[in-house]
């Protein structure tokens, strides 16, 4: 019985230690990737500033952890959102600049949310 208890304690400790080590590694490498992305974004911003007014340009101005960052969004998604904005503004898109894309909080009417929830639940 004592052996069983020892194994349980050792096993739990090893599982926690392994996963904590993975957490630390994720934190480190995501910070490095964010730093590299920031540097790249800054150089893109500089290029965009010199090209401004010539057409649609998209650039992020904040770091990767901010909700306003464009990092992590696929170019296709950014293109679709930009095109949707251009369509809403009834514009050809010339001179349009999307500087950031932010997700906004819940402000949808409750009945719309309930309907959407029901629809999503039927799919999962």
């Amino acid at each position: 019985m004592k052996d069983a208890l020892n194994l349980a304690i050792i096993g739990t400790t090893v599982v926690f230690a392994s996963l904590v080590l993975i957490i630390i590694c994720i934190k480190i490498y995501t910070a490095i990737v964010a730093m590299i992305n920031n540097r790249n974004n800054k150089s893109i911003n500089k290029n965009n500033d010199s090209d401004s007014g010539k057409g649609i340009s998209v650039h992020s101005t904040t770091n990767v952890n901010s909700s306003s960052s464009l990092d992590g969004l696929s170019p296709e998604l950014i293109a679709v959102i930009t095109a949707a904005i251009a369509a809403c503004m009834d514009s050809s898109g010339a001179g349009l600049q999307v500087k950031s894309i932010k997700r906004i909080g819940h402000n949808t009417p409750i009945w719309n949310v309930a309907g959407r929830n029901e629809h999503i639940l039927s799919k999962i």
Partner: protein
Amino acid sequence: MWQAFVNAITKLASESGFANITYLNLVLISIALVFLYLAIVKNYEPLLLVPIAFGMLIANLPLGGLMNPSLWDDPISFEAILHEGGLLDLLYLGVKLGIYPPLIFLGIGAMTDFGPLIANPKSLLLGAAAQFGIFGTYIGAMALGIFTPQQAGSISIIGGADGPTAIWLTSKLAPELLGPIALAAYSYMALVPIIQPPIMKALTTKKEREVVMQQLRPVSKTEKILFPIIVTIIVVLIIPSAAPLVAMLMLGNLFKECGVVERLSDTAQNALTNIITIFLGLTVGATASADKLSQPGFGLQALSIILLGLIAFSVGTAAGVLFGKVMYKFSGGKINPLIGSAGVSAVPMAARVSQVVGQKANPQNFLLMHAMGPNVAGVIGSAVAAGVLLSILG
């Protein structure tokens, strides 16, 4: 003339399966039919339960020669198996040698998005906490006194809620219990939506269940590509015995995320996983033969496995939720403890349960992606736990 005819008919009858069937065969055939009913009519894990139940059925039809349990008695002679073994004996080599479960993990890796876990690495702790079900049940199984440490370790892994991991570890530690353990593991995985919600509700307050978590940050492609490489290096260096499962899981994920091997990713997700699932299910089912059932004490062991499996599952769920409550306190109420229950693996069923229970408390709550973090962390956690058990008990 008439006598010769009667003799021929008598000989045929005595050599038929009807004359050789035992009552234990009939019991197991009935159980196989119940499993087929559950899979086909009730839709309980049909992808696995149909081949498992059919394997069980054909292994208990006498004189078919598809599986010969006597060939697998210690000491095993692989030469005899290759020369005298039936079709299922040959396919069972993939289970015995630990080939199928890692290949299933390759497919699971190719289907899994680790994005929510990378966006919120703390959810790995919930995946670790839920593994307490495994080690807690190990103590319980040993306390019963009817299992060897190897058998207790194999039973406890049911708490990891991961079928391939349970099969992999049991085939190494206690192959004689493979049938009941695999069936218990997959049955409880199918019953996640019934087992988990009462535990989750009992351990949380309404206020805790209503917590709306912050939107996860987007994860870049580079981060997703680096993840499987880094996890493989760390886990294999710490627990080398977990290498087959973790390395294959991460290779599959690398196929998916790197974007340059679409064909390999597609094969791992679909064709390969389906083929291995057929082989695995059929052969695991075929291990539930009448010879095993007639061994003294097997019935008691099988019943204990079913009970301990349920305890393992429940303890794992409770440990995940309780750790979720700790994280709720430390985060100042930003983490919904319901996502802790998803740490038991059972991807993606356990995450769906968190979503459904959370949404009942607060209809505007979307916990699915938040629960996917601990859910996939549970897969890594249970593979690590299996590695620990194998290296200590193996």
